[in-house]
């Protein structure tokens, strides 16, 4: 499963986009440690946090009024599994990695983001890096792919649940002044059931795209 691996964008944009995954068989075995992992993710200004409880996704997205609050995700009574968080600042990610290193929970921690940033954090915290998964070329009929800005939004849901038609639809809505870019980002993010989508970054990209077309 590599659905946070191929996020497109330039360095400046990707510097504001991180996904942290907490993994391992120990999560099922030690629910209290798993709860602590969720608390660590929640402590450092997440854009989004998700856990699965008894198979059901329990998710928070910042400023998503119709969704669940961060506190409710943390306090959910069922044992958490599939624990992920999305972040926009390197210093928050560093804080999380430091907390995980200090807590010695034993779970595998994966950071999806710009390698240089992640390796720098590892050096400061005094851990890994252990193994990388590098995103390479897209091959085949690449002429079918949309332009870069659309791809940057699209690839934030690696399962392809946020498609080109919906992204273009919301760009048009923003251009016509019917909704804000922030609201468009949240509505796009709502479709990404793994909650890997970064609606804050999406809103910035949509604004850039709309401004480019003016």
């Amino acid at each position, binding site marked *: *499963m*590599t659905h946070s*691996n*191929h*996020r497109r964008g330039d360095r400046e944009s*990707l510097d504001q986009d991180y996904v942290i*995954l907490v*993994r391992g*068989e120990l999560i099922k*075995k030690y629910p209290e440690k798993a709860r602590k992992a969720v608390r660590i993710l929640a402590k450092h200004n997440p854009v989004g946090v998700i856990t699965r409880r008894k198979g059901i*996704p329990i998710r928070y997205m910042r400023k998503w009024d119709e969704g669940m609050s961060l506190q409710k995700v943390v306090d959910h009574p069922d044992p958490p599994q*599939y624990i992920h968080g999305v972040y926009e600042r390197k210093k928050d990610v560093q804080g999380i*990695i430091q907390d995980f290193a200090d807590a010695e929970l*034993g*779970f*595998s*921690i*994966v*950071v*999806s*983001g*710009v*390698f*240089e940033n*992640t*390796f720098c*954090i*590892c050096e400061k915290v005094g*851990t*890994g*890096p*252990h*193994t*990388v*998964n*590098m*995103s*390479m*070329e*897209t*091959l*085949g*009929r*690449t002429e079918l*792919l949309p332009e870069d800005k659309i*791809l940057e939004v*699209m*690839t934030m849901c*690696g*399962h*392809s*649940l*946020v*498609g080109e*038609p*919906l992204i*273009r*639809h919301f760009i048009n809505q923003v251009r016509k002044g019917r909704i804000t870019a922030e609201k468009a980002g949240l509505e796009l993010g709502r*479709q990404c*059931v793994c909650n890997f989508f970064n609606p804050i970054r999406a809103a910035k990209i949509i604004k850039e795209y709309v401004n480019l077309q003016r």
Partner: protein
Amino acid sequence: MVCWICIPYCPLGAIKKIHTDTSTTATIDQDECVECGVCLRSGVCKTEAIYWPELEWPRAVRQAFSAVLIGYGALSKAGVKGYDRPDGSGGRGTNEMKTNDVTGRIKDGEIGIAAELGRPCQGFYFRDLEKVTLAMSQLGAEFETENPLTALLDKKTGRIKHREIMNERALSAIVEMKIGEERVIEVLDGLKKVAKEIDTVFTVNIINKCKDGSIPIKTTLEKAGIIVRINGKTNIGLGRPLVE
């Protein structure tokens, strides 16, 4: 009532307007639809015009490889053996490098390679997927047993055993293999070659165990002129073995 509000929600554009002399309605193109359920789950249809019927095999394979939260129950229901995570907890692929600090799946000197069929957001037909699995098999792939796709394959040849799914379509599938690092350029060249024969896209991943804070295979890739993106996933080595 016809509102067309659902049309953009389909990631592959399979919901279409149908014009007649007297009216315009919306319909789901059943060949293009991959049964991902995004339109239904979005909740935008207020008239219950969208519904999900019980799917029969082989069409159910579309749902298994497209609907993220549905899982792979359709495979076992159809008698496909060899995949025991019907709840979908394994996702499209496996834990690959995410738990490598505990499992040691990818060792020093080994490379994990994956081809993600249909990504980003194009979908694929199983007939195209087979072209890739056949090519990867000829390149010496050992198909990952924990990957749901492998249950559909003859592991020796990469041929899809269930021929009835060849014209079915899905959102994405991940073909995973492991090789020695000395073969990485040869395998990437093989993937580039087969990419010219398919009617969709796939995106390639390379997994490598780090050494002394760096990525050993990166120099080989850069020397060969292969593009490596600046971002990706890093297992930071905090996992510990399964102990009481």
